């Protein structure tokens, strides 16, 4: 193995490891199970972007994944920066203004807040429920596999992207007649992973070619497609 090859391999490994970590963060954030405020988005994004700079020679599949994650993280970062305000600190509150004087006005009622312990039989009851839920989701997964599970990432990699771009191009041209924008959701008649990926990736290509402009006003919200030069 030449030096260059081993270099690429190690970058590859590091990248895929980083992607997995980011993957977890992104999926948690998507489901609303972590608050973007709990992670230092700015820091994570910067580290991730530094990686991208080293990924030029890599496999297209990794790059497109990377691009997607980077775009999500960048969006989170911009939202985070936008919302962030000059540091205030609870330890050194601002001047005694009306707000702090009003604090004593709020006197909660004094109630009992005792909490009881959970019993062993309650623990067992929850175990039964957890087992049932697991069985159900396993059954669903098996069913899905039988119906032909779909690997979204492999599709973009193996299919002819230009063909897909042409298809989306035609569709957009038709829809832009009389409209200054089209929503991503309008392009998806059946929201399967396959349909979404096969529409989204061509859009990225077209945006890159400055044929259209993509705008997402809310994180994970609908994407606004604006015509530039179709």
């Amino acid at each position, binding site marked *: 193995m030449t030096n260059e090859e081993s270099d690429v391999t190690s970058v590859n490994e590091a990248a895929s490891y980083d992607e997995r970590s980011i993957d977890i963060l992104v999926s948690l954030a998507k489901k609303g199970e972590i*608050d973007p*405020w709990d992670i230092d988005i700015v820091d994570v994004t910067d580290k991730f972007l530094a990686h991208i700079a080293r990924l030029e020679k890599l496999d297209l599949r990794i790059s497109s994944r990377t691009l997607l994650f980077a775009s999500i993280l960048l969006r989170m970062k911009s*939202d985070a920066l*936008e*919302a*962030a*305000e*000059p*540091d*205030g*600190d*609870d330890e050194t*509150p*601002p001047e005694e203004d*009306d*707000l*702090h*004087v*009003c*604090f*004593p*006005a*709020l*006197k*909660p*009622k*004094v*109630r*009992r*807040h*005792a909490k*009881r312990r959970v019993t062993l039989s309650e623990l067992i009851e929850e175990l039964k429920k957890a087992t049932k839920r697991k069985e159900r989701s396993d059954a669903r997964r098996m069913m899905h596999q039988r119906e032909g599970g779909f690997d979204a990432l492999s599709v973009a990699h193996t299919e002819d992207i230009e063909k897909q771009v042409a298809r989306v191009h035609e569709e957009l041209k038709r829809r832009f007649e009389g409209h200054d924008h089209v929503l991503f959701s309008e392009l998806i008649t059946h929201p399967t992973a396959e349909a979404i990926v096969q529409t989204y990736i061509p859009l990225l290509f077209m945006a890159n070619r400055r044929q259209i402009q993509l705008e997402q*006003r*809310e994180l994970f919200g609908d994407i606004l497609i604006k015509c530039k030069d179709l």
Partner: protein
Amino acid sequence: MNDRDLVEAALFVAGRPLTLGELESIVGPDADIEELVASLVADYQQRGAIEVVQTGDDVVMQVKASYADAVRAIAQRDLETPVLRTLAVIAYHQPITQSKVAEIRGNKAYGHVHELEARKLIVTAPHGRTRMLRTTKAFVEYFGFETENLEEIKERIELLLR
């Protein structure tokens, strides 16, 4: 076991307001819950430092106001001072955007808003790129305001400020 004592036990362990419906589900459908509650309210009024209060459908057991300050320190404080302060800002300025609250209270306010929402003391609704915050009925109940009207709550806070 008698029904009145069962209501008393339920209010004691709950540590929060229970609805007449919740009490009925414990005592059973045959009991006259309203009467049992009225009897407890009257009984507690006459004696000691604890009171039973009914507000609409809600019944709660709590320390009488005259003893509240003396034992506040020993009560497990369920809202820490910085969170309470953020809540005060929201109550006074509501409806107010989350970014405005963060401007006044610093970035920690985002965590506070999260906690206050989980405690159902405030509700948040999307508002452009930030969120609009306001207090809830649970807030009114928690602090013993007599009104749910936001303007009247603000007036009342303003009055207390003087």
